[in-house]
């Protein structure tokens, strides 16, 4: 019987194997997390763009996902991941990892066994090519959508306006009066018109009476310029003689200057004329 006479090596090869497993699978996990973060960024960019919110908030959400996701993924037991994929390595890697300092014949035999079986492990089996292809395709589609919708300046719903409406309700001005009867006011009375702020860019609807519908069309891509349609520039001739004095004539305050004793006469005159 050949018994143990020489010093057993124990888990001599395992630390190298473990290092390789950790770095290889670790880099795959980083790649996976980056892909996920990009997908999240693209999706939120699109959503925020349609809601008229700064799309850069998508980057914040993506970063908020990336950091903890990467941390958690890198913390996962990579040896366990290999064991789950390769049943022949079941518990062997964890056993070796937990007893790496052990030096005996059985440990050495297990070390050799692992070194032999680890050769069958393919890194591609952890890649999840189908899943990643779907993710990358999704990112590409989202990018196209972002570019296309940006050119149309599309916004489904302006969240900012909604938020302003909800958070900052329309101020109620009790002094504001619309349609003051100027004639009813006593002569010499100064009528003051207060500005009414509605918060609506189109203004108060009652301020625009009438039945004429104005057709306004804003060309969203009007900023584009066709150089061919533009004519040549011409020189505008300006007078080089400037007035000596430039002033604004103050508005005269007009009032009725009919003497009181003549007022009755004037009144009668207009009544006669009116008949």
């Amino acid at each position, binding site marked *: *019987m050949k*018994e143990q006479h020489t010093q057993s090596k124990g888990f001599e090869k395992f630390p190298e194997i473990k290092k390789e497993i950790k770095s290889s699978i670790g880099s795959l996990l980083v790649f996976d997390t980056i892909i996920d973060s990009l997908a999240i960024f693209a999706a939120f960019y699109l959503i925020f763009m349609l809601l008229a919110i700064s799309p850069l908030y998508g980057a914040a959400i993506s970063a908020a996902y990336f950091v903890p996701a990467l941390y958690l993924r890198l913390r996962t037991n990579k040896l366990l991941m290999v064991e789950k994929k390769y049943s022949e390595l*079941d*518990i*062997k890697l*964890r*056993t*070796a*990892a*937990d*007893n790496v300092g*052990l030096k*005996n*014949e*059985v*440990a050495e*035999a*297990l070390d050799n*066994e692992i070194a032999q079986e680890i050769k069958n492990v393919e890194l591609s089996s952890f890649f999840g090519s189908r899943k990643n292809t779907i993710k990358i395709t999704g990112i590409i589609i989202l990018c196209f959508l972002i570019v296309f919708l940006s050119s149309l300046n599309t916004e489904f719903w302006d969240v900012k306006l909604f938020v302003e409406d909800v958070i900052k309700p329309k101020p109620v001005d009790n002094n504001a009066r619309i349609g003051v009867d100027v004639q009813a006011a006593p002569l010499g009375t100064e009528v003051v018109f207060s500005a009414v702020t509605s918060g609506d860019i189109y203004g108060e609807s009652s301020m625009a009476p009438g039945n004429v519908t104005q057709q306004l069309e804003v060309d969203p891509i009007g900023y584009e310029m066709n150089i061919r349609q533009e004519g040549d520039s011409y020189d505008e001739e300006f007078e080089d003689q400037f007035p000596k004095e430039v002033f604004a004539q103050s508005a005269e305050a007009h009032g009725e200057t009919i003497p009181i004793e003549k007022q009755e006469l004037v009144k009668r005159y207009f009544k006669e004329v009116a008949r």
Partner: protein
Amino acid sequence: MEYTAKFQEIMKEMNKTVIGMNDVIEQILIAILCDGNALLEGYPGVAKTLTIKTLSQIMDLKYSRIQNTPDLMPSDITGTYIIEETGGKRNFKFQPGPIFSNVVLADEINRATPKTQSALLEAMQEKQVTVGNSTFKLELPFFVLATQNPIEQEGTYPLPEAQSDRFLLKINVGYPELEDEDKIIEMYTKEASVPRLAKILTKDKITYYQKKTREVPVAHDLKNRVLQIIDATRKNKALLQYGASPRASINLILAAKARALIRGRNHVTKEDIDTMAYPVLRHRLILNFEAERKGMTTDDAVKEIISKIK
């Protein structure tokens, strides 16, 4: 692997006389590799004694058999001092009992009185015997393989908990499968000759394998699993009155290691732990009244505990 080939050889040799009891043989081998003792329980005529006897023949070890009866005295087991006359001088001389062997078959152990049963205690645990003022070391390897049957409880002395805890495993020996029983009939009704058994395991080899068993590495999460199982036996008051001791934890790990080695593995698996939990724990747990009323066994309790541990 060397171990696997050797254990397969043992199985093959054992199957010359014992059929359909590979699980039992494996468990006895586990007890031997763990340097522990085993208690075999089964109905009469299921080849408990034959299995142990055959195994002891395969191993090149000193073997003795103690047939327990109520009138068996402790000194019948341990040995006693006798007066010896040499040259006209009378001296006390120690006459070793059957315990001074490597393999002791304590047949129908529950028929012996507690006093006699306790004589085995020290030998099983300490591997030594104290007679009078003298303590005698037993030759290693030493293990007690005891048998008992679950029926005919009248006039028997069930093993006290302290004593049953000293058995590494309690192995249940059931009836053979019909196919196996057919082979048994065929074997024992045709030829009168007893098959010749080869000595496969020597004393040194057994000691070597015992050392190897302890060298088998165990992953931390499997150690935790053992601890969780043992802890659950103590906390599961819905089923159990008393749980297992730390000795059970040690024995469960050791038994799992030995099973792994026998099965040609250099590492312990979850399956080793779960499988060995039954023979390691079934004689260490005491069911409460409610569980007994429901007709549960300790195996049912172990099964329930294992199923709850992830």
